[in-house]
Each structure stands twice: as C-alpha cells, then as structure tokens.
C-alpha cells in the first residue's frame, strides 16, 4: 500500500488562500432582454423561428434544435411543477411555465416540501425591490387553480443588458506535504534555506520535491544553501492590477541561490528605483534581507538587496 511519500511527515496547518475574482458577464441578447425586463416585472421567453418551440426564460439558441433565429415573447407568470428537490439552498424545482416547451429551474417558496407534488400549479413571486437578475422573481409559490396563462408577443422590449457584475470567491487550504513542509519549517524556525539534491545536475532543487524532473529518479539528501545568489532574470514592474501584493514600481527577480540549480522568485530592493534597470541585471549578486516575521513562508525574506562590490570578497 502506498502511504505518504518516503520522508518524515510534517504537521503544518495548511496554507490558506482565497481567490476573489470580479467579473462583468455579458448575458447576450435573450438573457440580456430577460434581465432588463425583470425590472418591469415581465417574464421574457424566446420562440425558435424554425422549430416554433418556446423556451422560458429566453434563450439565444433553441434547446432542442440549436436554432439561432429566436423571437422574444412575453411569458405568463404561472406554470406547473414538473419535479422538485430540497437542498441546503431550499426547495429547487423544475417548472414548466405555461406556454413553454421546455422546463426551467427555480426556487419554490412559502411551502413545505411535503406539500409539493408534481403537476401542482405555481405562480411567480416578485421581489419587492426590482433587480436586473433572475432573482427579480424570488421564486414561485403554490397557486392551486391558477388559470393557464399564454405566451404573447413581447411589446416594446427593453434593450438587452450589456453586462452584469459577478463575483467568485474561491477558498483553498493547501497542504504543504513533506518536502515543502520541511523547507518552510527550516525557513521559519532557523531562517535557513534548504533544498534537495538534484540527481540530474549537481546542486540543490528549491522547492524540494520527491523526484528530479529531469532524471525522474528520487532526489537526494537535503542540502542547505546560503541566502546569497545571483540575479538571472529581472523586470521592473510598473503595471498595477487587482490582486497585486507589491506597490509598483518594484523589481521582479528570478534569483539563483548559490548552490541551487533552480531559481527563486522575489523582489530586489534597497536601490535607487529610477536607475533600477542599470543597477540590477542578470549577473547581479544579491543577498536576502530577512523580515522580522517568522511565519515559515517565502515572505519571511523581506526582499533581496544587491551585494556591494567588494563585500563578498571580504567575506570569502
């Protein structure tokens, strides 16, 4: 049985990470008109010109035939339950709006699960405040004996909404695993950078890993590397964007630590930024400036700074 990879286990709480992504989504013509008309409390459907089939809410393409020539219609606010379930989100049903040829999904309100049955008549419940969202209809409620409505031509349709705001928050708890865990423990506890020996080229791999990418054999023993190195590649970042951690301008650098055969990504500071591209270039010697924090993360290194000429010779 395969258990954990072959090194001592590390008990570190996972790295928490949240991706909080903003969007502006374009609904397209049919959904765009539907959402725009929601504020007028009108339900918009679409009839496929070639198949004659009606979808409510409106779709740009016929669900059955894929037809793309659609004429918009006004749909009634009544329909019939065709199926239902209950989840943590509430009661979700498939519904056939009167006059439609396809079912849709929505919430059922003001009813207990046990009261529901397939074939029950329902009517739309409009939100008190108008929103340009499907939730302008908060849901549907039971409406026994509600007369069967009809689909009508849509008069004076609103312009489709060009875009709607949206947001996605994704939360993660990333496990460190034995190799990263050991390395970050060393960084946090001893302010020491360690990798594992590459079995392809003489030197340390950081971050450490079970197998060498090139030889695809198990990596060798742990190996400490100093916190000095050489800039191999750099860029002066001026661009600002959402989610950015550093304030531009700053130097993005890929640094090869002495004894390592991989590069570490960090920033180089402590220089006159107006001359950044002259002062930091491939070949520039740098050393880590440790922050006061000891969190066991790469950010325990505040930044790298160039080693002044002569300093190294003195220390050698």
């Amino acid at each position, binding site marked *: 049985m395969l258990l954990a990879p072959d090194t001592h286990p590390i008990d570190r709480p996972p790295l928490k990470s949240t991706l909080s992504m903003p969007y502006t989504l374009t609904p397209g013509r049919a959904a765009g008109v539907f959402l725009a008309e929601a504020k007028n409390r009108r339900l918009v459907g679409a009839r496929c010109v070639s198949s004659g089939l009606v979808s409510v809410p409106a779709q740009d393409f016929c669900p059955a035939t894929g037809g793309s020539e659609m004429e918009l219609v006004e749909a009634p606010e009544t329909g019939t339950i065709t199926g239902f379930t209950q989840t943590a989100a509430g009661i979700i049903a498939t519904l056939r709006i009167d006059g439609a040829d396809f079912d849709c999904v929505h919430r059922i309100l003001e009813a207990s699960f046990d009261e529901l049955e397939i074939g029950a008549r329902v009517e739309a419940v409009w939100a008190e405040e108008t929103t340009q969202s499907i939730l302008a209809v908060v849901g549907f409620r039971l409406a026994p004996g509600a007369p069967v409505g009809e689909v009508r031509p849509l008069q004076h349709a609103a312009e489709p909404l060009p875009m709607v705001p949206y947001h996605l928050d994704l939360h993660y708890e990333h496990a460190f695993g034995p190799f990263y865990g050991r390395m970050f423990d060393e960084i946090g506890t001893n302010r020491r950078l360690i990798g594992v020996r590459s079995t392809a080229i003489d030197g340390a791999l950081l971050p450490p890993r079970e197998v060498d990418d090139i030889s695809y054999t198990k990596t060798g023993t742990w190996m400490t590397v100093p916190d000095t190195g050489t800039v191999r590649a750099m860029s002066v*970042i001026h661009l600002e964007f959402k989610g950015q951690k550093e304030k531009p301008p700053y130097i993005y650098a890929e640094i090869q630590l002495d004894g390592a055969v991989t590069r570490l*990504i960090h920033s180089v500071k402590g220089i006159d930024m107006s001359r950044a591209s002259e002062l930091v270039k491939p070949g520039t010697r740098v050393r880590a400036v440790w922050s006061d924090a000891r969190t066991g993360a790469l950010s325990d290194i505040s930044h790298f700074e160039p080693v002044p000429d002569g300093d190294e010779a003195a220390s050698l």
Partner: protein
Amino acid sequence: MARHVGIVGIGQTHHSRRRTDVSQAGLVREAVDRALADAKLTIEEIDSVVVATGPVLFGAVNMPEKWVVDAIGARLKPVVRITSGGGTGLAGALAGYYQIAGGQHERVLVVAYDKLSEGALQYSISTLYDPFWGREFAVGIMGFSAAYWRARMDVLGHTEEAAAMVSVKNHKNALKNPYAHVKKEVTVEDVMKSRPLAWPIKLLDVPPISDGAAAIVLSSEKLAAHSTDRPAWIRGMGYFCEADNAAARSMLVSEPLALAARRVYRSAGITNPRRQFDVVEVQEPYTCFELSYYESLGLCAPGEAAELIASGATEIDGDIPVNPSGGCMGANPIGAAALVRLIEAAAQVMGKAGDHQVPNAKLALAQAGGGWANLRGVAVVSA
C-alpha cells in the same frame, strides 16, 4: 501509418475589446457557424467536438464546454475540453487531429475562445504561480516574460529596438486583417517611448486584450472532398512541455519549442525551415517572444533574430513572412489565439487569406504556446 487529416473549414469572429452583444456561448456559436459554413457542413455532420479555452478563471464558468455545448448544438455528441494556457487552441486541434488519425472519428469540430473582457486578466493568470512559491510576486505571465527577455537581451542581442520592429511589422500587417481590432500603424520610436509595464516590456510590445472565438473543421481524407478541393493538410503537429522549475531550465532557448519543431519537421520532411516554409504564424504574447521563436524554430541561428527582423525577411513580402495576419498584435483572445494562428496558416495554403495572402503559399508553419513559457506546440500545414 496514420490516416491523413485535413483542415476543411475555418472560421473566426471579428475580434474586439469587448463584445457586449453576445455571451461566451454566443461568441462560440459565431465562430462555429462560420467554420461549418466554410466546410459546407451542418453540426449534424460533425462526429465530435473539442473545446479549448484559456484558464477557466478568465470567465467565471468552470468547465465552460458544458455550458457552450447548447449553443454549439452538439447535444449527445462527444465534447471534451483541452486546456493548455495560451496554446490551448493548438493543443485542442492536436486532440482533434488524433481523433481522426487514430480512426475514432471522421470529422471533428475544434472551437477555441476567450472573452477576456469579462474577468480580471492579470489577477487570474497570476494564479499560474505556485501558491507557496512566488505567487505573491506574480505579474500574470508578463513578469517572467519580461525577466526572461532581459536574460536574452545581453546574450542573444534581443534588444528593445529589435522587439519594437516586431511590433511595427505586426501592427502594420494587422491593418489588412478584417478580423483584427487593433488597427494602427506604429513606429519603432512609438514603441520605445511607450509606457513601461514590466520593463523591458512596454505598452506597444503587448497585444490587446480581446473577446474572440475561432473554429476549424478537421476531416479524414475520405470525406475532405465534400467540403473543399483544397484542404490544408496537416503534415505534422506536436506539443511539448518543460517542467517549470527543473534544474538549469534555460531562459535563452525554448527547449520544448525546439523539441516540438524537431519532431514535427522530421514528420513533415522539413530540413531547411527558412527556405521551405512560405509563411509562418507565431503566437507572440509579447514582441520579445517572436524574436525567440525565430531561433527556436530554426528560422535563424541563435543570436541572429535581431538581424532577421531588421533585414525585413519576415515582412509580408520578405522571404520568410512571419505573422502576415498581424499575429496577436491585431487581436488576442488568448484561448483562441493559438487556433487563430493555425487558421491563418491554413488560410494561406488554402488560398483564402485575402488581403494578407502570401502569393502561392503552399507550406505553412504555425507555432503556439502557453503556461510558464513551457508549453509549446508546432503545426505544419500544406496545400
């Protein structure tokens, strides 16, 4: 051994900065309709669909092929999505190619798209980085792309001026491309003076951010004649990678690209790419990459890219035109960009490239790639 596969229909949208009239699904449909019309086919005559997009965080819909399938009209057909960052369009075409070459299907639709206006591009692509190791410093793909260019600058002579010439050439070529949305002529001086974003990358080294979709119909040899008497035959296609943090990873040459080229050239019988190819389309996320590709693709020797661009050889009327379509500089819907390169290469050998047609083009090379500059593909198509 493998069955011959041809591109028998091509289609792309008129790309733009923001399409507020169509959803992602509607955008896909436009390209599909155009490719099917070009191939004289309906969706019913397609056996299988491959969807390719950039990273899903671009668009707020996870596994978006499962949404756009309704718009494609591909219900109950095989539909699968291939992803490979910016190169995904070519990676998708490769999967479609093998579905036919391997005898599984006769006709495959490959559609690739991105609607980049809808998301936060740099933020979402910065999640390419390892959350433990460097993500806090990520600047999309621009940070490392600029840094690697800086590394090549001294050693290989890929100067800012040489890259600016790529921008000038591609901007000029895009003027003749009806699907491009950036239509402005720029000078070397304009590029050099443009605002630094991630120096040495400056504003005019960077393609636009675009909404766009592209589609091709691949066909077995048996059924190709139904669609066209002049398919673009696929002579070779390959897509190689490199571990992003392997020991001693080179920033000077793209080894996965060189590997892909070597493999594909062998199957296509290419021994002298500069002489043999009539036209080349490369996917340049930034101008600096086009210079690097010249060398990795063997259009010139390492260290000679600056000389090659300066000589005018890669202009549309040069001996080895590169990006007569304008490349990504005219439009860059990332998930579609690689397939657009293949479409442009195919259009050249099919004689359909319109105002940017290279006369008598018979053999064309398309290059694409993505990820951490470590996913790289090549295709050779012929008349």
